[in-house]
């Protein structure tokens, strides 16, 4: 580990805040991450000095604004090692990116009788767009099941992929923390003639990402989980596929020509970026990517393995069978997201009690209701760690949990 999370934390003004005289233990980064001063400053500076419309005016300010927006796109390309900058499409968020693929590639290519393969550990954002498409097109949805320890059960993968046109899956579960074997899944999809779509929301902010090494066709992720602002996300797609696809949203910026009797589309990436985009947010996302890159994504991953190992060990040692951590126990195949069941205390009550100690965890279904059903729970509590969390935060979590045990000790 070549960075100190205690030092990193000082870059995050919000985490300096105290509530009732106690510091904040923010363990909800799988939900959304906090923002470093570098991102806040970059957005303020841009707003104060260079904000203007992009792609449509000749004056210097507009040129500066356009340059800043395109510099963000170039930064994203480098961050995920995409082959071409025009393959990076800015969207509102990852949800919109997945809806874009479903409504554009999906509608153009799926026919009644085709199948879409998903997994039991998907977020609603990688389920509902496909339900919508399936209902519209008479397409069958199939699901890769899970093993008892929260990994994908790939035993019947070739059968499940038989007749599938799309295999869309997460690179990391937002509930279980499971890392999936992306390259293997992509290869299996391609061998069956399906395209492979990777939901990278939970993976990209925490691991070095190389879309070419994955070999995937589309990858979606958001800015707000990687220390950038909300309101902007990314769809990376293969140029050949993006070229063939019909546009998603219509409007300004995405057109080459508009006549009374029709329109023609702009070149990539503008073709998929209708309307004024999130300009300042793109600048913020660029700053976030620079920030993470300066820490080094290998170091981010190494730090999270360390803190996850510590947290699992701490919680299991202290609470034994009173705590159940869902998902794989081996840190090598999981990220820093720990969903857990504590005694028989309902997750909402766990979260409420933890809040008294300023320990912020998510309680609920995590937008993954099919997975919750599989776990036999309506909800779990989830603690997720990031670059600004140290082992002291795992200690704080363990200490605060004792209060829940005391209050609901039955």
């Amino acid at each position, binding site marked *: 580990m070549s960075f100190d999370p205690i030092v990193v934390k000082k870059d995050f003004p919000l985490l300096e805040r105290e509530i009732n005289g106690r510091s904040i233990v923010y363990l909800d980064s799988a939900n959304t991450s906090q923002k470093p001063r570098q991102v806040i400053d970059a957005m303020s500076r841009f707003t104060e000095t260079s904000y203007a419309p992009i792609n449509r005016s000749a004056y210097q300010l507009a040129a500066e604004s356009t340059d800043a927006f395109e510099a963000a796109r170039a930064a994203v390309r480098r961050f995920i090692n995409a082959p071409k900058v025009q393959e990076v499409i800015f969207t509102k968020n990852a949800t919109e990116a997945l809806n874009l693929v479903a409504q554009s590639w999906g509608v153009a290519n799926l026919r009644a009788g085709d199948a879409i393969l998903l997994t039991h550990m998907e977020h609603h954002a990688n389920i509902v767009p496909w339900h919508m498409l399936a209902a519209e097109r008479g397409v069958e949805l199939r699901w890769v099941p899970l093993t008892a320890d929260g990994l994908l059960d790939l035993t019947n993968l070739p059968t499940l992929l038989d007749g599938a046109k799309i295999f869309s899956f997460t690179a990391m579960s937002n509930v279980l923390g499971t890392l999936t074997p992306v390259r293997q899944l992509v290869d299996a999809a391609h061998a069956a003639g399906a395209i492979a779509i990777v939901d990278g929301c939970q993976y990209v902010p925490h691991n070095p990402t190389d879309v070419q090494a994955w070999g995937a066709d589309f990858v979606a992720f958001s800015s707000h989980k990687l220390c950038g602002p909300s309101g902007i996300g990314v769809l990376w797609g293969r140029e050949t596929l993006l070229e063939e696809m019909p546009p998603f949203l219509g409007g300004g910026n995405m057109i080459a020509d508009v006549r009374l009797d029709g329109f023609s589309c702009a070149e990539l990436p503008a073709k998929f970026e209708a309307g004024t985009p999130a300009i300042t947010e793109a600048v913020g996302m660029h700053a976030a990517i620079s920030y993470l890159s300066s820490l080094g994504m290998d170091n981010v991953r190494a730090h999270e393995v360390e803190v996850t190992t510590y947290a699992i060990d701490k919680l299991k040692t202290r609470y034994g069978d009173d705590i159940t951590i869902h998902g794989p126990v081996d840190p090598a195949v999981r990220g820093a997201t720990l969903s857990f069941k504590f005694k028989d205390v309902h997750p909402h009550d766990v979260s409420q009690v933890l809040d008294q100690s300023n320990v912020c965890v998510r309680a609920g279904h995590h937008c993954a209701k099919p997975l919750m059903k599989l776990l036999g729970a309506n909800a779990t509590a989830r603690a997720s760690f990031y670059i600004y969390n140290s082992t002291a935060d795992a200690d704080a979590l363990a200490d605060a949990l004792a209060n829940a045990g005391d*209050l609901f000790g039955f």
Partner: protein
Amino acid sequence: MPGLEDLYREIILDHYRSPRNRGELAPPAVRAEGHNPLCGDEIQVYLDVKDGIVTDIKIGGQGCSISQSSASMMSAAVKGKPIAEIRNLVRRFKNMMSIEEDDESTPPLDESKPLGDLEALRGVVKFPVRIKCATLAWNTLLDGLDQSI
């Protein structure tokens, strides 16, 4: 910040540990189902209604201490009561939860009877996120009453 003792009153924990009127009622009992979309909690309310009176009520489903205890107290409070009185009680409870009435044509609230155990849930208002937990059963009850007509 309000303390946990404002929220987790002993009587609430008692209803959570020993919920009243748990179970199901067979048809022709009315069955209403409620979801809290934020947390995934589910509740079922079964009602036997005869001559405008809720003669029996059962509660199913699962949820946090606040939603479960609220459902338990509600079941005890409405069992054997006329529908008009129950509707008045639902309005009083939602008022207590700071939920404004959207229909100004409703009759004036009758607040002559004490709320009893339900008073214990007053502290929930200090924890706005939990108001939805407390009102889940009550909204589901309203659904059931509407079905029973």
